């Protein structure tokens, strides 16, 4: 499922709080270039970002892509892995999110894969 390596310099802390450099601020606007130095992510792997300030905890994502997203105890979604394999379910989870709190980015260059704007 995952490429086995962390992405960026911060990795995740297991809570899925962030991927990349030291925590998102809820804007989801960390530069994608932070991720170009990914180590261990297979070509085509993706990074799942959850904007936890936006998340309202509908749980649709965790039901749609349970391998990659889960609802935390605080009722907010989190990515389960530093990197994930791309897939229809993950794309659907990002496209379906009622508040657009989820983005799927290329692990290679930070390009947005879903949702398509």
């Amino acid at each position, binding site marked *: 499922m995952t490429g086995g390596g962390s992405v960026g310099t911060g990795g995740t802390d297991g809570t899925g709080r962030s991927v990349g450099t030291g925590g998102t601020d809820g804007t989801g606007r960390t530069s994608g270039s932070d991720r170009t130095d990914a180590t261990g992510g297979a070509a085509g792997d993706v990074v799942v970002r959850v904007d936890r300030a936006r998340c*309202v905890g509908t749980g*649709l994502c965790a039901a749609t892509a349970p391998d990659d997203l889960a609802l935390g105890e605080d*009722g907010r979604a989190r990515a389960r892995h530093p990197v994930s394999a791309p897939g229809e379910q993950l794309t659907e989870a990002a*496209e*379906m999110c*009622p*508040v657009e709190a989820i983005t799927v980015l290329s692990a290679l260059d930070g390009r947005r894969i879903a*949702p398509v704007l």
Partner: protein
Amino acid sequence: MSVEQRPAESAPPLVPLHCLRHAEPGPPRLAALPTGTPVWLVSRHADVRQVFTDPRLNRASLYTPDAPPVSVVPNILDDPDALLNLDGAEHQRLRRTVQRAFTPRAIARWRPWVASVVDGLLDDLIDQGSPADIVAEYTRPLPVAVISRLMGLDGLDLKRLGHWSDHALSATAHSAGAIAAAMGEFAQFAAELIAERRAAPGDDLVSGLLAAARESGGVSERQLVSLVVGLVVAGHETTMTTLGNAVVYLLGDGRAAWQRLAADEESAGAATEQLLRAIPLGDTEALPGLLRRATEDVEIGGVTIPAGAVVAADAATANHDPAVFPRTLAEDLFAPLGSPSLTFGAGPHHCLGAWLARMELELALHRLARRLPGLRAAGPQEAIVWREGLLTRSPLALQVAW
């Protein structure tokens, strides 16, 4: 709309919704619903959010055979086939059939069209001249026009729609028999609409949800009918209510903000969030909060709620929790919220139409203030006649002048 007014001998005039006083939030406490059923009232911001998101508290268990009565006179919120009253996989299956149409980016595509409806209504209002009833000319027709277009309800009889909507959200206004009859007619309308769109699909929301339901399978006909009814009602009633009550505030106690509201859409957007937070949809007497039932023991705010207990999440009080929102509406009208308001709920049942409502309100308030900078209330606040006996409360009519 056809709501009965109060008999003359009843209590002093109702205050506008923005004037309602909210209790000091505190730990969950036991009270009783109008049915006599014990209910845990939850009022602090964090606790209300927990009630909405914790899977041990749900809606479906409110309507199982062992459940205590929660409504004296059942209305649309008590329909066991409604999206609101499904949980888990069944809920998600049904919500999926419509969710894509309501994401922020899907709603944003409607923005130019909604703006054109707003402008058309304002043209008509101005042509007609001052004074005018802004509810009849603006705050009611806008949400009705929008949901009619989204669902493809051309030629919908607005009198019938008003009649159904009043009954759908009735608290004390109508008898159980009258509500059941109106809901029966409404369901018949929805069933006919579904049959029509199956035979000849279009680009509307109903055709879209039918296609999605067919593809996913597992969605019952009753659920589809209830969903269509729910979309029609929720698609206009609450937006109309919020817009009407926002105008009451902005032409009264909040009049100082009118010029800035007209200045730019961004300010109007910020004000919309604050108005949604601070002005509740109705009175707590009608509904102490949004109900859930505990499927197992669950701790909320330091209190153990036993399995089987009914919980009311009082979002109106939580939206005034001084620990989270310390400033008044007047002080903060154009300030970012800081913390999310609970107006649209949270968790699996977070309001499907939240982004549509926000967009309609923002455009409606901004353009109203821009086109009519001198708009004022034509009568005193105390003289406002309210739609009463429903779960929501808003002006039945509101005379304005410019």
